[in-house]
């Protein structure tokens, strides 16, 4: 229904492109199926545990798929394949950080979080602290990280529809953003965590199937000899062997190298601090199942990033950088163009079909990610800020879930408006900022809470607000916002911080501020509460 609303203007704009009708049809099927699942899940959602945590009824494998579906955004599917196609090896550097990051979640975070928390990240951060200050800080940080990430996805969705459906002008972009926003709010308010999880599972299966198909087709062209594929890619790139070495994107100057180091730190430490990822660990019954879900996620996500290598180098070799850049200078259409080429080229039926399939998968990818983000931020608003801070624990379960649904609608509406009126925002910079805040504000506080006995409320408040403020301020005074023609405010120049990614400074700052706040505060940590958190987080005693 909603899909028609988006695509009707697009179809009217120019009905010539062969694949468009098929893309729209496939995507409509996806939307109808997921809405069906959502309504079914909504009927099964009775209490707060159902709404926030899907009744903790998912298996480790199901949750592993859902985590992958939550994590593999359009940025990683289209963005990384495109970056590899245009910059060769440097595109691959992203994937490595995105994968290695999961070890932090596996070794340090997933199981203790599942054992000691209930619905949100703040449950664990505030466990041994004074509730109101820490929950307020953690709730704000959760919402800020999720909204940055959400905006990136929605701005990206707007440009994507223009690219994949070959339409121009602002109207189709804006209709896409409205439709994506309306669908994600529906998934969350009606289906809660159960509905959202199934949407992510369906999307993960589709994305993996689509990527696997393209990978096999690419490798088959080179007789399953990866070295031949690499050779063809470097030759077609026009850059020779430099295409297969690091440096084309980040190696230009000392500043770009530092910028990459900064991004790499944020990627590897940010994942385990992303609230929409953390809440996924509550959807399984035990810590052991949380561990199994991360193991599956590592396998699925690792396999996916390995396949993006084939996609990126395949696009470079078979489509060629000139054709990719002509379609989109950032390379975001490399994977769809590769699909068209593998299906038989532009104008062929096979090409049209494969292009339509991959485009529909890309749309599905965006929907699943934004639903997860909306759920995490509205849950934190209702559970942390409303129930525990405003109502001081006097709100009933019904009221809390009601507030979460309203919050989802409000956050959805705000995200739609921001995404439409701020479409100049750079999606990649927004994602990098979300990771930097997660690594600078959330991860230090989470690790100190779990493993440092002396950590206090003042320390927690300092690391959350400090990490958050330092990362956001550094971006405000970076070339992302001013000083360059591509900046958000191109006319002004108040950029004194040279790096686009704040992590190199903000992550150590977050850890340092949490430590300083603890040392300088007069209060001492409550040893009994720490004993309780430690015993519960390691044994699962008293787990929800």
């Amino acid at each position, binding site marked *: 229904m909603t899909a028609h609303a988006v695509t009707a203007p697009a179809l009217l704009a120019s009905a010539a492109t062969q694949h468009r009708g098929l893309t729209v049809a496939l995507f409509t099927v996806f939307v109808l199926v997921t809405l069906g699942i959502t309504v079914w899940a909504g009927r099964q959602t009775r209490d707060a545990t159902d709404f926030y945590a899907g009744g903790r009824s998912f298996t480790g494998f199901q949750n592993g798929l859902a985590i992958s579906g939550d994590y593999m955004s359009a940025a990683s599917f289209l963005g990384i394949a495109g970056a590899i196609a245009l910059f060769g*090896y440097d595109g691959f*550097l992203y994937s*490595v*950080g995105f*994968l*290695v990051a999961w*070890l*932090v979640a*596996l*070794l*340090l975070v997933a*199981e203790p979080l599942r054992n000691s928390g209930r619905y949100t990240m703040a*449950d664990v951060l505030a*466990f041994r602290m*004074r*509730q109101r200050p820490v929950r307020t800080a953690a709730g704000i940080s959760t919402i800020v990280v999720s909204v940055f990430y959400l905006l990136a996805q929605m701005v990206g969705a707007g440009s994507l529809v223009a690219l994949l459906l070959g339409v121009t002008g602002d109207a189709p972009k804006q209709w896409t953003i409205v439709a994506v926003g309306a669908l994600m709010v529906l998934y969350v308010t009606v289906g809660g965590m159960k509905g959202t999880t199934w949407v992510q599972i369906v999307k993960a299966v589709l994305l993996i199937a689509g990527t696997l198909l393209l990978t096999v087709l690419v490798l088959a062209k080179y007789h399953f000899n990866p*070295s*031949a594929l*690499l*050779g063809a890619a*470097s030759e077609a790139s026009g850059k020779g*062997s*430099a295409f*297969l*070495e*690091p*440096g084309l994107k*980040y*190696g230009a100057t000392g500043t770009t*190298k530092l910028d*990459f*180091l900064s991004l*790499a730190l944020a990627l*590897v430490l940010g994942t385990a601090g992303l609230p929409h990822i953390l809440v996924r660990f509550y959807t399984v019954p*035990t*810590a052991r199942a949380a*561990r199994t879900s*991360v*193991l599956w996620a*590592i396998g699925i996500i690792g396999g996916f990033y390995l396949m993006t290598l084939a996609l990126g180098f395949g696009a470079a070799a078979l489509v060629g950088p000139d054709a990719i850049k002509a379609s989109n200078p950032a390379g975001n259409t490399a994977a769809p163009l590769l699909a068209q080429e593998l299906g038989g080229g532009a104008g062929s039926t096979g090409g049209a079909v494969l292009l339509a399939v991959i485009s529909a998968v890309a749309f599905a990818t965006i929907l699943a990610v934004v639903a997860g983000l909306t759920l995490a931020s509205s849950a934190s608003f209702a559970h942390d800020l409303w129930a*525990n801070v405003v109502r*001081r*624990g*006097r709100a009933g*379960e019904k009221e*809390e879930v009601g507030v979460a649904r309203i919050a989802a609608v409000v956050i959805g509406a705000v995200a739609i408006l921001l995404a439409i009126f701020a479409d100049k925002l750079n999606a990649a910079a927004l994602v990098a900022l979300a990771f930097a805040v997660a690594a600078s504000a959330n991860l230090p506080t989470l690790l100190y809470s779990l493993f440092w006995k002396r950590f206090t409320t003042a320390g927690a408040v300092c690391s959350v607000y400090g990490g958050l403020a330092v990362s956001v301020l550094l971006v405000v005074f970076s070339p992302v916002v001013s000083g360059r023609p591509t900046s958000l405010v191109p006319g002004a120049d108040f950029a004194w911080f040279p790096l686009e990614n704040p992590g190199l400074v903000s992550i150590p700052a977050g850890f340092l501020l949490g430590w300083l706040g603890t040392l300088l505060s007069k209060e001492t940590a409550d*040893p*009994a509460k720490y*004993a*309780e958190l*430690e*015993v*519960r987080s*390691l*044994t*699962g*005693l*008293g*787990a*929800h």
Partner: protein
Amino acid sequence: MDTTPQPDAPPPGDPGTFARIEEGEEFRGLRRSFRGFAFPLTAAFVAWYLLYVLLSGYAPGLMGATVAGHVNVALVMGLLQFATTFAIAWLYARHAARRLDPAAAALRGHAAGGTAAVPAPAASPSAAPQEGAAE
């Protein structure tokens, strides 16, 4: 300041129970086994990843050296990051299944058994352990 009931407050068991468990040798063994495995391994993979990132930025000559055909050191190093990630995940899963899970289950069992055999004086001493055991 927060005297009102918290929906997320831990089950109102005897606060001394957790402290007693935490001081026990059994729990200390579990903690040593977890930290002794997870902390050094975390330091190792973060260092290994940073080495890879630094080499990519500052040692182009080494990373560009050919290994075989069109495969260079950079690609091998990147794929090794994948391999070590999979290997560390597998190692941790094995360690957890062999050492951590049985110890955690035993502690949960003792906590449940302990409160059943010796009723604690607190108001609702069995809430937490029973939930844990029901898992």
